[in-house]
């Protein structure tokens, strides 16, 4: 009963999305106010249907309804309740429904938010979102229906993939998708602005909070995935430049460029066509990511079950949405010209460099990710691209960016003369360099050349970001949330950079075969292996090892790394033991049973690694703070007075 209801709700949702799209675009275009007014009810209706559908699917999971094929493939009666719920998005069909549902959530939020904007513009924004939703729902119903029945019903399910039976990985998709999907809002605002010929900078101000919020979610989503990989995968890696990881990273890079470009457009009416293009680009990369993950075009450990027919559908959808938006862009953008100016040392300059470098970084990642595909298509043979390519090429554009950041954060708008803050900056640079060198040579040993440089940049970002707010507080000036958010976000980035530098330069790793009572030394720590004992969990069994950790002979802890085997899918997972000690992570993971009581064990000492994810979360926090700046609500109230459609070609 529930699956049928869910299925039916999906069909209705698709129809309502179609109506939302149609009324939203045709209404304002043809001047039909009744159509324009019909958009909001369509939004509400679609959301209700989507929520119903999701609720039905989750309820069916909780009920262990194995007559539904998707549930039979992804759940099991022994699966704990929490994971029966999160299994809803454990595979392609369900995660797609989650995607669409989150788009519905954003749409409702936007509908409420734009209610104070001119109604035709608001309708257009919602209309574009409706078109996106319609396309995805059509795709779902045609190729990826999660409510398909299994006849006769399976006696029990094939269980959720054990790697997904983990709290961090369970919430990683919803948060990640919230970010991904959120860029559709910026996309919709851009398309609405282009459709309307409304090219003044108010559109930029309206878009900013939405885009920043989406960016913050995406940052958290990516950080969660990375953190999970680190503690779950057993070899202490946190980023692999895997195609699917890159698929989420590219929208993030462009999204970062976008939030900075929006600042310039909002403030000075500059870079309008560029900001439009970035708005289109960010969501396009999200869509491209969806394509790469679900079409089987790229080989990846992450990708869902590959199916070329799904790939064709998504590709066509991509062409319609992105091609359409870029055509609009080619039509409208030439009309945007601004006569504003700025000095070389002004803030706009730094934001220009920021954008250029971020887009180059995104293009580099895109090129590397698609390289195997391109090489194959051109008949140049099978190419393989991994960390040895991405690391140096990514750093090429990103290190200059971090250096410029510390300078740019002080620059004034329009008239920037660095001489004003030269002295303060010089002091912060010297302090940063000294701190970094002490850190590296005092605490850790044998740093490579790049490490002190990169570490200095990291600390410098943190210090120079603080100069301004502290100055403002001292001069009793206001400290708007935008400034606080920016400072916090930049500090997060500085922490991240510092962490990556120390982890990459100073990690100590040993793989050793140990028998009962054997000891090994890694860095300043000694590890004594005390053997393993069998253990059992709700849906798995395994072994648990005991290792006594001492530092220079002083006992610090006893750790218990595990290896589990899940009953149903018979997969083995490693639960490494990770302990924080004096700012470093002490990482112990079981390898293989070598027989005769000996086990291979992996030890890692990773300094400052937790700052990596902490830094990312702080970045996202900064974004969240900035998104709630009061300027955005005030602006909307000011715009409540109806504005007649301006003639195209309005100069900034």
């Amino acid at each position, binding site marked *: 009963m529930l699956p049928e209801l869910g299925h039916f709700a999906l069909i209705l949702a698709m129809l309502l999305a179609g109506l939302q799209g149609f009324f939203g675009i045709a209404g304002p275009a043809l001047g039909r106010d009744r159509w324009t007014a019909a958009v909001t009810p369509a939004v509400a209706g679609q959301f209700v249907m989507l929520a119903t559908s999701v609720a039905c699917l989750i309820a069916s999971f909780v009920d262990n309804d194995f007559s539904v094929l998707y549930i039979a493939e992804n759940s099991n009666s022994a699966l704990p309740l929490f994971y029966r719920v999160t299994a809803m998005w454990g595979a392609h069909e369900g995660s797609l429904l989650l995607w669409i549902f989150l788009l519905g959530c954003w749409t409702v939020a936007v509908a409420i938010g734009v209610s104070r904007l001119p109604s035709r513009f608001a309708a257009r924004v919602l209309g574009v979102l409706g078109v996106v939703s319609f396309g995805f729902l059509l795709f779902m119903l045609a190729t990826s229906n999660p409510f398909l029945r299994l006849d006769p019903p399976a006696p029990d399910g094939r269980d959720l993939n054990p790697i997904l039976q983990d709290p961090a990985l369970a919430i990683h998709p919803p948060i990640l998708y919230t970010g991904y999907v959120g860029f559709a809002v910026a996309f919709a605002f851009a398309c609405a602005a282009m459709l309307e010929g409304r090219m003044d900078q108010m559109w930029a101000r309206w878009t900013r909070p939405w885009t920043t919020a989406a960016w913050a979610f995406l940052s958290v989503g990516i950080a969660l995935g990375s953190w999970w990989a680190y503690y779950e995968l057993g070899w202490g890696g946190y980023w692999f430049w895997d195609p699917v990881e890159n698929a989420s990273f590219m929208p993030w890079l462009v999204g970062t460029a976008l939030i900075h470009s929006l600042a310039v457009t909002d403030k000075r009416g500059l870079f309008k066509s560029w900001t439009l293009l970035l708005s*289109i680009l960010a969501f396009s990369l999200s869509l491209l990511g969806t394509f790469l993950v679900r079409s089987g*075009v790229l080989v990846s450990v992450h990708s869902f079950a590959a199916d*070329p027919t799904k*790939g064709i559908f998504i*590709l066509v959808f991509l062409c319609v949405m992105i091609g359409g938006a870029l055509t609009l862009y*080619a039509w409208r953008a*030439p009309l945007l010209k601004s006569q504003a100016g700025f000095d070389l040392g002004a803030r706009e300059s730094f934001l220009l460099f920021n954008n250029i470098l971020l887009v180059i970084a995104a293009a580099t990642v895109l090129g590397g990710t698609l390289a195997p*595909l391109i090489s194959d298509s051109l008949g140049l043979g099978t190419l393989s691209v991994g960390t040895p390519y991405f690391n140096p090429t990514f750093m090429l554009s990103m290190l200059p960016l971090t250096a410029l950041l510390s300078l740019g954060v002080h620059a004034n708008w329009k008239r920037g003369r660095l001489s004003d803050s030269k002295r303060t900056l010089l002091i912060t640079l010297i302090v940063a360099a000294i701190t970094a060198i002490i850190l590296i040579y005092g605490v850790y040993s044998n740093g490579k050349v790049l490490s002190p440089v990169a570490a200095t940049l990291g600390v410098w970002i943190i210090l120079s970001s603080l100069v301004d707010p502290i100055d403002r507080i001292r001069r009793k000036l206001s400290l708007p949330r935008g400034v606080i958010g920016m400072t916090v976000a930049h500090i997060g980035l500085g922490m991240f950079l510092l962490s990556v530098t120390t982890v990459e330069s100073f990690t100590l790793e040993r793989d050793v075969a140990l028998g009962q009572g054997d000891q090994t030394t890694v860095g300043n720590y000694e590890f004594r292996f005390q053997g393993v004992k069998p253990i059992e969990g709700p849906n798995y069994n395994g072994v648990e090892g005991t290792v006594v950790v001492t530092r220079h002979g002083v006992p610090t802890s006893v750790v218990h790394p595990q290896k589990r085997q899940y009953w149903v899918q018979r997969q083995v997972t490693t639960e490494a033991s990770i302990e924080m000690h004096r700012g470093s992570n002490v990482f112990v993971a079981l390898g293989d049973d070598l027989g005769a009581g000996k086990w291979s064990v992996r030890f890692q000492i990773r300094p400052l690694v937790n700052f990596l994810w902490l830094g990312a979360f702080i970045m996202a926090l900064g974004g969240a703070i900035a998104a709630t700046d009061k300027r955005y609500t005030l602006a909307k109230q000011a715009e409540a007075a109806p504005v007649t459609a301006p003639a195209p070609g309005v100069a900034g």
Partner: protein
Amino acid sequence: MNRFLIPLGAFVLLAIVLAVGLKHSPEKGVIKSPLLGKAAPTFSLPVLTDTSRTFNSADLKGRWYLFNVWGTWCVECRHEHEALLEIAKRGEVSIVGLDWRDEDAAALQWLQELGNPYEVIAADREGRIAIDWGVYAAPETFLVDPQGTVVYKYIGPLTMDAWVNEFVPRLPPKQAAKS
């Protein structure tokens, strides 16, 4: 106006690349072998059915043969066994087997159960010869010509369809006529 069309143009290019990639995608994961057109690696290994005997690959020169890599641990190898027996029956090429990283006893048992399509089977217990042939996923089947050149490599369980469509056209007409 021109430069604003650049993004659209770039996207069109990208879409073409993706479309081409989609078309090729069923072959993803299949790496082209660098051995094609080169001399087949030589080896000397114990014979599975009589481990006191050594088999030398030089003995294979002068005729067409299939070099089939398999193991009892490989589920898909079971699926192709029927096709191998059929090809062996047709007799236009002989099939040489490489028992990859396997246990002799289990392999012999397997052959007894399922039948033996091989003219001779070399036991590669340590996996060194498989590396020489660039094997990475069982089952794999190579087609080698009388001069000892590797003509074709097929990855995955062999089927009669694949035999007829991929292998037979590469055999000279006289051989194929027997098919």
